[in-house]
């Protein structure tokens, strides 16, 4: 069973050299900056692919969008991969309207995201930071 780290506030878990980061119910400045910090931390640790799971996210505001654009930029600069999973319909519309979906793949759920990433990388090893 992969481990689940809560970090300071943001929940995340490592799956081999991938990391799954769980967004909260409202992606605003406070929660967004926590997610961005966690993403950058995972990239610095050598993580090659990130999944941000929006399963609990009901709303993303403008600051949240800007922060996600920053995450996309950071991932692109390191040559890693990024997938957003479990995004609700309203948020998908927002991401499409603002162009985020041109830079990041969407997956219906976390399993699909992991499967997509596994096509480009070796099978995930046992969990561990």
């Amino acid at each position, binding site marked *: 069973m992969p481990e689940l780290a809560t970090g300071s506030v943001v929940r995340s878990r490592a799956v081999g050299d991938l990391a799954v980061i769980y967004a909260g119910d409202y992606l605003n400045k406070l929660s967004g900056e926590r997610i961005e910090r966690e993403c950058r931390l995972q990239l610095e640790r050598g993580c090659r692919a990130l999944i941000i799971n929006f399963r609990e996210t009901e709303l993303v*505001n*403008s600051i949240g969008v*800007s922060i996600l654009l920053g995450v996309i930029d950071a991932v692109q600069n390191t040559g890693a991969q990024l997938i957003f999973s479990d995004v609700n319909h309203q948020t998908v519309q927002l991401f499409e*309207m*603002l*162009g*985020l979906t*041109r830079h990041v793949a969407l997956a219906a759920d976390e399993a699909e995201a992991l499967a997509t990433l596994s096509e480009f990388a070796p099978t995930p090893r046992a969990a561990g930071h």
Partner: protein
Amino acid sequence: MEQEAPLQKLLHSFAALADLGQEIAESSDFQEKMRTALHLVQGSLGLMRGALAEFDTEQRVLTFVAARGMGAENPEPLALSSEEVSDLIRLGTCCLTRDDENPAAALFVEHQETLLDASRVDMVVPLVVREKLVGLMLLGGKATGESFTAEDREVISAMARHIGVGMQEHKLFVELSRRAAENRQLYDEMRVIYHDTVRAFAAAIDCKDKYTQGHSERVGRYSEIIAREMGWSDDEVEGIAVAGYLHDVGKLVVERDIINAPYRIDAKQSSELNRHPAAGYEILAPINHPYADIPLSARYHHERIDGRGYPEGLKGDEIPLAAKIVSVADSFDAMTTDRPYKRRRDFESVIDDLRCNSGKQFAPEVVACFCRALLKEVTGQTRQAGIIRTLGRGYVEREKVAPLLQALIEDLESGTLSTTAGNA
């Protein structure tokens, strides 16, 4: 869904604009305010890069205060020519792009091409408030890859106006803080000059009386010690010290022969000398002192609690507290310094005098505070031995004095030595 998209976009932009207004109005941390503002601009339209710079009018330099997607750090400061500044002010808060047909905009973009290319900037927005350039916003392209629409430009311009106001407010705040600091420094310097002048004046007063040199300064020091023991604020303590320094200023109008008489003066001379409190008031009253009660302290420092003082024979609480303090300090110094016609008294008899005259000549609460301050010095409870040091080595015999002071304080606090006349 395609019909819903423009409405959703509009609502998203409105929400960002509302958040920006709130942020500009409420946030007190300027750096954080600018970072959030940039987030809101980028997030409202899905812009990959952006930066905000604050303009220093005197140096003609733009200093970046927030940046995202422009590299690891904020871009280097950007110097502008006076022509560029004028052009940007003329353009006002608007969206300038490389393909802009406005000649001034095209010229600016051409001049700053290196920066714009290096930071992949697609749009420059001057932040102009009341015909003054306060900053600049640089924006990268939309994440959709589409060009900016007229509606996008409207949204950006509206947000830029908010940000410009926020920057202008910050500049005003910084300027006000700078001026307040300057004023504070000027005030401190003037205060030093004021106190130096007061000390010089006190020295001039004392020079007239060759037997009481340093009297005014000592009365100022004792008054300060009493007021501090009474729990007065620093400003009030400074004020009472000044009152002590100047309490005898009226002696300047009294003939030197009377002041320096090496014998007990007669009734007529005494009457002349007793003019000095009122004369002191006349001298000090027209001056706008930074502290209260300085003229009144001079006028009433020879009043007595029992009403037998002068010039007006005030009783008890009719006498201002500051004058009561100066009165005790003045009499204490008179008893503990040599005079032309008598040597100073031994210290035990001075304490006895304070006891006997408490509630008659002196206000008991003032005597009690003076004794408490003195006892702290005698017993070493305080290192600030201001009274004992002033009195000189060997004058105060600590073993003898401490019990006397302690007993006097207890009697004063228990009410045994309360006032006898009119101290309401």
